[in-house]
């Protein structure tokens, strides 16, 4: 029976396969090519930026269109689309990619006094092409059952032989670690940094993990005693399991300060919505949005006038590394080479 109808069925399904998406594309382009919407290409994950954008639209009536993707891929896309791009704003989750986008000529200057007032100089691009909007601190986390805070000191100290078999790290492929090592190179010089990384590798209790959360789980399970993580991962774990026997330690307080990175944004050079795009970034730099940033992901506001969330406040205040992020960005490749040579995978 079916044998007989199959050819017709096939012909129909073929027609459907080509017509359906075509018709949907027509209809969807009607919905999405809203002329007045600000188009945002974002490497910051949807659930961490949508709340801010929704609030912005509620207050100003200006629509936004969010298109998420991987950082490097989005940069390639804006490059490929060149002057025809629909993107007005490019958002990245770290300074390295912001810096690279700027270097590739994808941004135009922000030209905003509001941003200059609200965001400290070291969290912005020296040439005004991008600005940080939230701060992510990368510091030590340790097992409270096995270590006292006074045994810990700084990132460099974790290379000491006394930590052999007690250290857990995330993979060197993660951009946060590239930035951290870049900052160590900037502060201590390449030779010292190389020794530090080699020391870390020697001290590893297990092959580097793919995620910060896995590093913390390994410490909890007793595999190792100390690791380096972004604080908001610690925040998430604590929110889930408040009695977890882990604590943060603010690294390098007696020296350079704890390493910080930003998630941030810039206005795309080929944008046809420059004014609205600037308005959105300025809005994101102000109180209300900064509070949402702090709440949705337990990050630090980039605007120093905005208080941290209650959860984050409980971790105590710390001295942040004031090294300019542009400097960190420029040393990232050097950091990668150094880590690859040292066998840090």
């Amino acid at each position, binding site marked *: 029976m079916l*044998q007989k109808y199959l050819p017709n069925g096939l012909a129909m399904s073929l027609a459907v396969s080509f017509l359906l998406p075509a018709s949907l594309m027509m209809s969807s382009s009607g919905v999405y090519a809203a002329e007045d919407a600000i188009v945002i290409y974002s490497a910051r994950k949807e659930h961490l930026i949508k709340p801010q954008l929704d609030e912005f639209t509620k207050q100003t009536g200006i629509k936004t269109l969010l298109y998420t993707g991987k950082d490097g891929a989005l940069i390639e896309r804006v490059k490929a689309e060149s002057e025809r791009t629909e993107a007005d704003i490019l958002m990245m989750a770290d300074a390295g990619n912001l810096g690279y986008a700027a270097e590739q000529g994808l941004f135009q200057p922000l030209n905003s006094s509001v941003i200059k007032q609200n965001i400290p100089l070291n969290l912005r691009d020296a040439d005004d092409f991008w600005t940080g909007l939230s701060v992510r601190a990368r510091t030590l986390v340790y097992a409270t059952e096995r270590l006292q805070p006074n045994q810990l000191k700084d990132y460099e100290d974790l290379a000491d032989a006394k930590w052999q078999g007690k250290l857990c790290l995330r993979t060197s492929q993660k951009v946060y670690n590239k930035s951290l090592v870049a900052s160590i190179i900037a502060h201590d010089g390449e030779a010292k940094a190389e020794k530090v990384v080699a020391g870390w590798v020697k001290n590893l209790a297990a092959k580097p993990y793919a995620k910060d959360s896995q590093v913390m789980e390994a410490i909890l399970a007793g595999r190792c005693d100390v690791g380096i993580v972004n604080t908001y991962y610690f925040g998430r774990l604590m929110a889930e399991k408040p009695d977890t026997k882990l604590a943060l330690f603010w690294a390098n307080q007696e020296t350079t300060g704890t390493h910080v990175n930003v998630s941030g944004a810039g206005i795309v050079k080929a944008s046809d919505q420059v004014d609205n795009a600037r308005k959105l970034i300025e809005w994101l730099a102000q109180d209300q949005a900064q509070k949402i940033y702090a709440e949705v992901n337990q990050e630090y506001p980039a605007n120093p006038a905005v208080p941290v969330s209650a959860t984050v406040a409980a971790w105590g205040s710390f001295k942040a590394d004031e090294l300019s992020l542009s400097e960190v960005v420029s040393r990232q490749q050097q950091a990668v080479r150094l880590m690859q040579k040292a066998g840090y995978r």
Partner: protein
Amino acid sequence: MTRLHALRQMVIWTPAWLLLATLVLLLLLPSLHLLSSWQEIDTELWQHFADSFLSELLVNTLLLVVAVAFGTLLLGVGLAWLVVMYEFPGRRWLSWLLLLPFAMPAYVLAFVFLGTFDYGGTFQQWLRPYGIEYFDIREGVFGPALVLTLVFYPYVYLLARTAFANQSISMIESARILGCSPSQVFWRVSLPLARPAIAAGVSLALMETLADFGTVALFNYSTFTTAIYSVWEDFRSLAAAAQLSTLLLLVALLLLGVEKYSRGRRSFVQQARLDQPPFSLKVWQQWFVSGLVWFVLLVVLIIPVIQLSIWAYQSVLAEWDSRYLEWFNSTLILSISAALATVFMALLLNVLRKRFASRPLRTALLLARLGYALPGIVLAIGIMAVMAWFNSLFATTWFIGGLFALYLAYMVRFIAVAYGPIESRLDTIRPSVIEAARNMGAGSVRLVWEIYLPLLKPGLIAAFILVFLDISKELPATYLLRPFGWDTLAIRIFELSAEALYERAAVPSLLLLLMGVVGLLILRRLNLFK
């Protein structure tokens, strides 16, 4: 008169062939684009690779490929043989359930396995009181090889099962009468006959292994693919990444060559198929086989689904919102329509292959299938570069961010998956059947609709299922090339799991799995596929 006829033929067919040639060229463009990267070589960068990780990743990749080849052969062929040749309790359902792992994205199985079996996971916490102190499933090749084997064995299983089931009863019965034991039948008759199908399945599994990024990244196991990512993301060198990728293409070419070689010059012609398992087992043996199959399902399907369900239960309130319907819809629409288009394209290519046996064309068809071994992101960026060129050529914005680019990406990536099953079916059609139909006066159209398509049906359906499931899980190309508003479940899974929010990622993962299961169920229901 004949001249007029010839002219008419030309008028009708030339545009069709031109169209086909364009399509083949489109499929080749990304690979050609990659090849063009060799114009400039950054010797200093290559020196750095050579000094730091090149040898390590070559060894790692080789180990992984060998391990996955071995694993998928063992599981795929072994299970297919048991399911086709023996009756045992639950055979009909089990034979179908064994396909389901393929609906699971590899990276989902990877994070479930890590969550369950790693040092801090539930499993080892149970074991620890019994003195089993410690093992790290992330060490060495075992973990990633296991995960990739478990999600890719269905390629081998599906193709081997079809091949075994389509072997002629008379051949097996002759072997029995000549005194062959079941195992001798397996080694001497069935395996050699099924070899082309099995080779096709293994080569698909291995190409996908070469392209995998998500799983090896979660295990932090460096392979060629992770190196390609590193070159691109760390050194911002698309050229070097493309150059490394062409090396992957070479390996894929080698795989296809091996597949072709194993197929040999023999042609396997369709005969009466097996409807009933020819061998019987004692009762205890039947239960043993049944238990064995259940054990495989337990590891690859049941434990992960339980873990995902627990996570989903904990997080569904926080995670669920109405947009899930949109994501579900776009995943479904994209997967069905692009899978149909890909299968259609693979059919066209196969027709081309049969119609014209010229060497350049064969080479082109071979090259067109290599896309499967490319890491998705390399392919996606390659296609984007080509589309950007089209954009400026036609002064439009239509090519990037339209469905066209995405469909092309799916086709380039998955044409190999659709090609194999169709090819092996096409080659089993007896020339005598076609001749008979012609002699009875059937024209080309009737020949296609009434002979070729019905005979190709099993191959077309197998191809559709594989590509449908593959596209529903696909991430990198979808992520970069989807039009606005076409977010898929795979994207949601990635965005959550990249932030290590595995509990929440379980919700879209289960939905994706459910979609695959329902799709397979419908096909089973329609009797299209058991």
